[in-house]
């Protein structure tokens, strides 16, 4: 690949974003959609600038609650994944339960959480946690449970205890699965927080969008959407970079 090709490849995503914005702007203007239904890109940008202060404050709230829920999800997900993945019995016993739990729309938990903890940051953190720990559990458990039996024989004959096998082979082996799941989990955590904020909070981007929507200030609502998506993208990229650094051996084909 020449230098020029590389540059083009790098610019491509930005060009795509730009193209989308242009199409958005042109469509809204041509069809003369009123701003309180579908604001144009320029109106949204303007709202972003005008309300930079409140948007900043609310996004900070969303960001930290998401990260708190995510951190909790990683801790619990890792621990649970480790426990379930390290025993065939537990794997079979708990898997259907987890799948069943995951099938419940997490928004259904919000009213319960509000009853328990009141409105505010706690339900947001917990919703983010509930929604994001599942992929982590499944990935870590699968990584551990799919150990090659021959590798296990090689170590067991040496007198390796179950814990030795898990720490020396199982855990490093499941790291690529773990990091892959982090990328999914972080975006899901944003979904959880925002869902909870729209229903049960007076802070955060979700709340901001809800209240702006009720006043027909659609430009501000769209500004909120863009902020969430930008935050989620940045975090996703962060974990993608982390994944490459930590588990380069699993991505050797792309080097």
């Amino acid at each position, binding site marked *: 690949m020449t230098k020029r090709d590389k540059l083009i490849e790098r610019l491509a995503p930005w060009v795509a974003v730009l193209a989308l914005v242009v199409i958005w702007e042109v469509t809204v203007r041509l069809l003369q959609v009123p701003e309180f239904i579908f604001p144009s890109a320029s109106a949204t940008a303007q709202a972003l600038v005008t309300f930079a202060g409140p948007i900043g404050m609310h996004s900070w709230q969303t960001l930290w609650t998401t990260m708190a829920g995510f951190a909790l999800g990683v801790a619990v997900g890792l621990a649970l994944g480790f426990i379930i993945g390290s025993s065939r019995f537990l794997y079979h016993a708990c898997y259907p339960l987890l799948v069943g739990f995951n099938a419940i729309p997490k928004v259904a938990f919000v009213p319960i959480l509000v009853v328990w903890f009141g409105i505010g940051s706690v339900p947001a953190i917990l919703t983010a946690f509930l929604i994001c720990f599942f992929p982590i559990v499944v990935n870590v458990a699968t990584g551990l449970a799919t150990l090659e039996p021959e*590798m296990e024989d090689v170590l067991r*004959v040496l007198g390796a205890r179950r814990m030795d096998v898990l720490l020396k082979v199982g855990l*490093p082996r499941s790291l690529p699965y773990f990091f892959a799941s982090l990328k999914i989990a972080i975006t899901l955590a944003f979904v959880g927080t925002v869902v909870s904020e729209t229903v049960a909070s007076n802070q955060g981007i979700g709340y901001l969008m809800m209240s702006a929507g009720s006043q027909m200030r659609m430009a501000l609502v769209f500004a909120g959407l863009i902020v969430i998506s930008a935050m989620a993208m940045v975090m996703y990229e962060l974990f993608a970079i982390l994944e490459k650094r930590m588990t380069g051996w699993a991505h050797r084909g792309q080097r």
Partner: protein
Amino acid sequence: MTALADSTSFVDFQQVSLAYDDSGNAIEDISLSIGEGEFVAFVGPSGCGKSTFMKLCTGLHAPTGGSVKVDGVEVGGPLKICGMAFQSANLLPWRTTLDNVLLPLEIVKPYRSQFRQRRAEFVGWARDLLRTVGLEGYEDQYPWQLSGGMQQRASICRALIHRPRLLMLDEPFGALDAFTREELWCVLRDLWEAQRFTVVLVTHDLREAAFLADTVYVMSRRPGRIIERREIDLPRPRDLAVTYEKPFIDMVQELRNLIGDIRSA
């Protein structure tokens, strides 16, 4: 090497049977004795319980009938004096070749507790071993940077690093091309000539068995029994050229016919 087989037996099977479940015995009524330092090979049609035999021998599985003794003691659990290598090299991709070879020392007693203090010494062992199999200069490469044959060499080094008295090989060269396979026969032959550990080689390849082993056991179809014990009296050290000479070819042919009879029976 027949003299060695006559010495007191190192691995001793007395009427051993094993059934994994109710579907019948995987192997049945196996009695044999392997002398210390002997090189034995097991051949037979696929599914004849050769790998089961390995599990019994290393103590990974207990027999459901009969007794297995290694070094005069009844086998009651995994035997640390065994090293194992399989058809797939199974190296850990996040460890360098050197660290892969060192892995058993991090686990097996008494080395595991000494690993930190004696690390430099252990690294020396690993480097020596890697040099003898022709992997000098590849110590810091990752397994996925090595060819299949090189990975298998490293896998054999890993099996030997804790200086086992019994080396178990389960079709170790099965996935390699013919030239690499013959190269590795010679590597294994030289290692064995130098260190004289006991080897149990499970294989489908009759030439491999006849070239490397002192004694070849032929197993029947499931339930696996030993139907033939053949001593290979070709002089040692054997050169690869031996495999193209008449006595060798005749012997392989005979073994081939035996297996052919089993398959058609």
